[in-house]
């Protein structure tokens, strides 16, 4: 995509991470997507504060903002956008959309990030173990990866979410999404570990008396960090989309807790009469997924140029 020549302002002899950072800083797509990501992350982190600023809590009903004679349609143009309700209100209930979108960002991103963390930690550990120890460990772990990848994951996730009734939905959803995600990253890490484990510096460490734990954490792990970071950023959008899909199908978080997917599902019935209600959470979802994809693309180009993904 971009030319490989390093920009002039990077001093000679700077490390790979500095080079990567300089390369990242040159790209416009990275700046834009970082801005969007930061915006939504801040929004999610400061959700209670922000909805306090907007003056409405996500569960407040505002009967004055909807017209009972028009089937509970929001009063005013664009779904009731006004100084009082910054992004308009929900039809029928009159709940503030800004507060709900912000609260929904918190739920959606919390689940997506935690599931990603589980996937990355489990996948990296399994991949390194399979690649480094080889033999029986590798055989067992690789079969387990194949097995997990053969599961019809969406159907399975939906089924598991609907079977478990009285559990914390957010915790369950994180676990279920995380459960099916780890083989992808484990394969990448396994391949990378295989190519690293017989490099001279690893052999040197072994000869020098380092135990497997030390070699894995000090020599192998930094070597696989680049692809892992790139891959992590690339699976986040998938996690966000999966959370949204599960909530959309009604097996995700339960009302009144809002999440973007669930808001979209509720708004589908009004797509004709109150399009803004449908458009606002959809745009949030779209922008977040897009920003993470762009960021992941850039990180992969820089940190994993040969593409260990197959």
């Amino acid at each position: 995509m971009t030319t490989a020549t390093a920009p002039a302002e990077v001093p000679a002899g700077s490390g790979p991470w500095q080079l990567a950072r300089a390369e990242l800083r040159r790209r416009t797509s990275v700046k834009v997507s970082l801005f969007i990501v930061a915006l939504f992350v801040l929004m999610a982190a400061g959700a209670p504060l922000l909805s306090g600023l907007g003056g409405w809590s996500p569960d407040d009903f505002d009967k004055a903002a909807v017209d009972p004679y028009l089937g509970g349609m929001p009063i005013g143009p664009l779904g009731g956008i006004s100084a009082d309700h910054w992004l308009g209100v929900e039809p029928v209930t009159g709940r503030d959309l800004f507060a709900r979108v912000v609260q929904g960002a918190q739920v959606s991103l919390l689940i997506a990030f935690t599931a990603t963390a589980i996937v990355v930690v489990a996948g990296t550990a399994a991949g390194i173990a399979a690649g480094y120890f080889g033999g029986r460990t590798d055989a067992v772990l690789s079969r387990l990866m194949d097995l997990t990848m053969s599961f019809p994951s969406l159907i399975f996730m939906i089924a598991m979410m609907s079977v478990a009734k009285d559990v914390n939905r957010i915790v369950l959803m994180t676990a279920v999404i995380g459960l099916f995600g780890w083989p992808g990253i484990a394969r990448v890490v396994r391949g990378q570990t295989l190519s690293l484990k017989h490099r001279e510096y690893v052999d040197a460490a072994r000869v020098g008396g380092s135990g497997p734990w030390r070699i894995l954490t000090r020599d192998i792990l930094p070597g696989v960090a680049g692809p892992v970071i790139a891959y992590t950023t690339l699976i986040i959008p998938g996690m966000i989309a999966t959370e949204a899909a599960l909530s959309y199908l009604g097996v995700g978080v339960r009302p009144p807790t809002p999440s973007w997917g669930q808001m979209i599902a509720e708004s589908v019935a009004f797509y004709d009469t109150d399009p803004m209600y449908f458009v606002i959470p959809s745009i949030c979802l779209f922008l977040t997924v897009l920003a993470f994809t762009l960021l992941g693309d850039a990180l992969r180009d820089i940190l994993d140029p040969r593409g260990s993904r197959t």
Partner: protein
Amino acid sequence: MIRYLSRRLIGVIGVLVAIAAVTFTIFYVLPSDPAAAACGKSCSAERLEAIRAHMGLDQPLWQQFWDFLSGIFTGRTLGSGQYTLHCGFPCLGYSYENSESVWDLLMDRLPVSASLACGAAVLWLLLGLSAGVTAALRKDTLVDRVLMVGAVGAASLPVYFTSMMLIYGLIRVAGLLPYPQYVAFGTDPLHWASNLLLPWLALAILYAAMYARQSRSSMIETMAEPFIRTARAKGLPRRTVVVKHGLRAGMTPILTLFGMDLGGLLAGAVITESIFGLPGIGRLFHGALSTGDQPVILGVTLLAATFIVVANLAVDLLYAVVDPRVRF
């Protein structure tokens, strides 16, 4: 080749049994007692026992699982005493909801899901591959940029958003297409296609975007290979180099992806089917979830797993055909 195939087939059966065991454990052990659900509110203890015996729930779990598994291949007799029911060869049990055979239910719905998946697959392969290959051959030009920005954008759109936009744009505003109502291919191929066009598009946009991205990077990588240089140096026309040498070798990663995606979709695109109201397996599954109809849930999951595993096997076998470098 024969050895490879038999080894893979054993693997396939192993995976399917493992999936069946996991599914069985999750759906028969975790949820509330199906017998209690079938018995209703005012249920005496004896009646509950009778129902449990009738459903085979009084047996130990491994026995239930074994009965289920062997029933798939040999058929089985369900129930006890005077109320027995023979369930023939591919026996997946009977729906708790309407007492229909799960196999019949699945086969009844399969044509809808298969029509949806296959039609969409043709569309997304055409769109995605042509966009990806065009972008790869014109790397770093305006065409490449535009195509890839479009692909990133389209890949970020959730399928329900695309579907609603298509419904709004093409049905409500333009009035170009009918609201999808499934018509069997055998009845009227033209209506079949025109009714499915919208769901096809909705699914294809998402997948085409992913395929365009994947095939672009794969083609760029392949076109840099030495054998492409050789082909060029031989003086082959550019078209032959791209199609016969580049595309053929560059398609292996796409083929893997395609096997997974098509396999997954054949057993029901849950979201797309529920948005467009298509009576496919995805809808059946969604309905079975809300009523806790475990035999149907188990049946759909197993069918989906079978499709994925078989598609993967087919893809691995196709490798040898597509990529001359692959040998078994």
